């Protein structure tokens, strides 16, 4: 089966779900979500069965805008599919909140009217993310990116009776459109300099000394603005906290994992073209270094005083983007130590670990949200008493995000730091150290409120009903975080 069949299946599945929503008389629309989930699990299995055409044949075929760059693109497709599966689980759990914020005043309407699209739209975003992982042509990158972004515009503003969600939607739309403008302009410059839309050809053209470095750097700067926006890197991170806080929780999870991972694939591809050119590498990695320092400092330090868990995770997502860009800024070269780590692999590993721990946190958040309204730290006080399992799941997630050894998150940081040492990036290392130390504090803050503080008011004793899929997903994620924290080969083997 060719690789692109997977995207086709996902899109078809999405359309099927929309049709079911419109024409089938379903009592409980959550069954649409279960259908999507099962379908995606099948797609995830198929990822291991696709055949890779050899590079030459692929170049000649109609699908030449869609490159099968080995395991890496499959790996990122896997991240997209896995994220979507868990997002659907969360969306099903979250449906009472969605329904109450989209309620239709018309008499006789289905009590869950409008819920179906909420389950179907993530499928289209997923197809876009999967395509992005394989896109090797400027146009193809742009189109897949837009497929994802436009879906997200709808999803972020989905709770139409909720001011926060609408505000988030508008902010995301305006800033997203602006960043898209930068991206297209950058692509136009790139095409103007090199005369090609194909990433491979552009790479060769940029490596040529005849290229005008100023024009190339200008194109890079424009692209950087757009990419920094997509992955939430400073100083283009302003939208992240507000949008994360306002969007429905499953969509926040989707944005923070799926969208970020795909953003980084494109970021790696695009910056890779500049980094492989001898004439540009110095300046480009310096610019990336500056962005990394800013992102690390802002993400980690502003996270410290946060009181809302969702906002905290927004800043944490910025902080992790900082570590990832730090890896990108370390240009691979042969040092005294011999071969150095490949930044691409480091980023891929980090994103895999980040997926596990962040989705776990969001799963717990969605479950808690069913009992307690709001996502302030107060809602998590005494959670260890109310639900030891949820508290433990969140403890593991936070330990991994903080980078405590024997969790997957630690290896992510270890690889990034090793890369920085191999490249002698002392400034980046120092800033990374400050960031990691700050991380200890703000991630443990949530642990402290779960374990060390007492719940206020009536929420003292409650049995948290954890839906079965959510429970299974949580157990799998906990095991995966610890297993990958002892045996990183589990993730590295997939690359």
């Amino acid at each position, binding site marked *: 089966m060719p690789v692109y069949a997977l995207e086709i299946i996902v899109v078809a599945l999405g359309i099927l779900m929309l049709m079911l929503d419109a024409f089938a008389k379903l009592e409980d629309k959550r069954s649409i979500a279960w259908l999507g989930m099962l379908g995606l699990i099948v797609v995830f299995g198929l990822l291991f069965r696709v055949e890779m055409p050899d590079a030459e044949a692929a170049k000649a075929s109609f699908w030449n805008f869609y490159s099968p760059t080995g395991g890496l693109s499959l790996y990122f497709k896997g991240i997209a599919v896995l994220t979507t599966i868990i997002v659907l689980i969360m969306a099903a759990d979250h449906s009472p909140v969605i329904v109450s914020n989209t309620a239709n005043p018309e008499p006789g309407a289905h009590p869950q009217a409008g819920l179906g699209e909420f389950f179907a739209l993530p499928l289209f975003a997923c197809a876009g993310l999967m395509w992005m992982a394989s896109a090797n042509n400027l146009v193809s990158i742009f189109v897949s990116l837009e497929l994802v972004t436009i879906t997200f515009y709808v999803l972020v503003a989905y709770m139409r009776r909720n001011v926060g969600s609408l505000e988030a939607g508008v902010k995301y739309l305006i800033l997203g459109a602006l960043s898209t403008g930068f991206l297209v302009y950058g692509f136009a410059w790139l095409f103007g300099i090199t005369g090609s839309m194909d990433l491979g050809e552009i790479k060769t053209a940029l490596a040529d000394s005849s290229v005008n470095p100023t024009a190339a750097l200008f194109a890079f700067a424009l692209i950087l603005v757009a990419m920094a926006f997509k992955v939430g890197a400073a100083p283009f991170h302003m939208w992240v906290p507000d949008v994360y806080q306002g969007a429905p929780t499953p969509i926040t999870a989707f944005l923070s994992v799926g969208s970020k991972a795909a953003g980084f694939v494109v970021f790696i591809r695009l910056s890779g073209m500049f980094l492989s050119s001898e004439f540009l590498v110095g300046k480009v990695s310096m610019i990336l270094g500056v962005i990394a320092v800013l992102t690390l400092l802002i993400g980690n330090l502003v996270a410290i005083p946060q009181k809302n868990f969702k906002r905290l995770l927004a800043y944490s997502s910025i902080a992790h983007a900082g570590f990832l860009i730090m890896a990108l800024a370390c240009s691979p070269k042969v040092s005294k130590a011999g071969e150095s780590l490949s930044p691409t692999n480091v980023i891929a590993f980090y994103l895999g670990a980040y997926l596990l721990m962040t989705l776990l946190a969001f799963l717990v958040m969605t479950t808690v949200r069913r009992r307690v309204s709001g996502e302030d730290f107060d809602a998590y006080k005494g959670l260890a008493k109310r639900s030891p399992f949820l508290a433990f799941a969140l403890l593991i997630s936070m330990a991994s995000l903080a980078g405590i*050894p024997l969790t997957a998150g630690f290896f992510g940081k270890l690889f990034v730091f*090793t890369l920085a040492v191999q490249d002698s990036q002392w400034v980046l290392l120092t800033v990374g*150290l400050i960031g990691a130390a700050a991380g200890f504090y703000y991630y443990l803050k949530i642990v*402290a409120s779960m*374990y060390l503080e007492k719940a206020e008011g009536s929420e003292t004793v409650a049995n948290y009903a954890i839906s079965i899929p959510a429970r299974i997903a949580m157990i799998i994620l906990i095991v995966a975080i610890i297993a990958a924290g002892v045996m990183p080969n589990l993730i590295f083997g997939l690359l």
Partner: protein
Amino acid sequence: MTILEIIVLLPILAAVVIALGSPARITALLASGLAAAATFVTALRFNLNAEGGFQETSSHPLLSIEGFPDLSLSFGIDGISLVLMILTVLVLVAAIWAAPAENSIKGSARIYYASCLLIGGGALGAFCSTDLFFLYAFHELALIPTFLMIGLFGTGENRVRTAWTITIYLGIGSIILLIGLIMAVVHLGGNTFNIADLVATANSSDNAIAPEMQNWIYLILIVGFGILVSLFPFHSWAPPAYAQAPTPVSMLHAGVLKKFGLYGIIRIAQPLAPQGAETMLNLVLVLLLGNILYIGLVTIAQKNLNRMLGYSSVMHMGYVFLGVVSGTAIGMNGAVLLMFAHGISIALLFALTGSLKSRYGTLEISELGGIAKSLPGLGLLFGFAAFAAAGLPGFANFAAEILIFFGAFQKFDGNIGWLQWTTILALWGVVISAVYMLRAYRNVFKGPENLALPTVAKMGWQEKAPILLLLVSLMAVGFVPELLVKYLRPAVDAMNLFVGK
């Protein structure tokens, strides 16, 4: 599965089982008892005729990718790690024994016992890992349990604040340490995390780290490990944490976990950056004098028994440092022996103050007085422990300290150098520790009885047993240091000790 893997896995698995619902105290006692038994079997099986090197080795490769050191979960022991493992299992058994019964713990007894086991299991894993990565990772296993234990079960109003202080302080220390370790590994070729291979590379003249870089790496490692050992001036986290932590955590942390930093310096920092160690010798000497003299004087001024013990444990780290940097085999033997002796004696003291605290509800020295009359057994035991900590002959502490002082003076060549001056000054620490220990003993146990104190129950055997276990091991090693030194000698002789000045 080798015996070492079983020893490390037992407490960790027991913690998991307890979390899943098995009876906490029995499971914990059983697991730690089995781990202790297995450790003693290992000691009996230990080949004393081998010339250094690791024994009982096992290795499971976990990661081998381009540009990153090969990673494997590997265990092995030499004499130094064996002695520290014996220390760990003794303290672990005593700490769990001394922990309150399940129904008298306010809050979750499962978290209580599982945390103790994780702290102990982490220390065991760190001491017998022959892979740098896991040496580091196992030590970090204790971070969150310590945080929860102090925050949940600690004493005093501001226990949450104390829990934060120790966690952030140690967290920062570990990150600094991590960067130092990565630098060392990368500059030694970056092919492996295997400690023996790294040391071999560092000793070969071609591939050793460049001297300039060695200074930096050693400095970063000293700061990182120093924070974990509470080297002056990075000590301020220790006394309040020990004073407020629940008794088993104080015992495990002060007795065992803190030794990890010293173990790291012996095992990693000095062998990997020997020239750095030589350049930075004088700096370390000044800092360790800070531990012995400055902290010693601070200890005298303490008004709370547990805080005093906390400071005294910080102070004694200075002696161990002196032995470690003395650059002589005698000094190094003494240093490891003192790690053992101090670990046992401080755990012993904390167990005793835990008993006091549970009876009187206070450890302010001024509020206690003359209690040996109502608690003669406890008074006698405390007297022994206090004499041991002050370095009276007959206890392991004396044997260790005398070795350190001899070792540090061994290189005397007619000129009194930095090392010798430090030794002369450090000797005054013995006087200081006698002052604070005897004063505390007199004020708490002897003298006029404070009539305001409630009448309390005498110590039962159940309560005395863990204390006697520690006391007997301390005296056994004190009378026959050879019991442990025979393990240490080959390991220390195989080390390439740097030349102290």
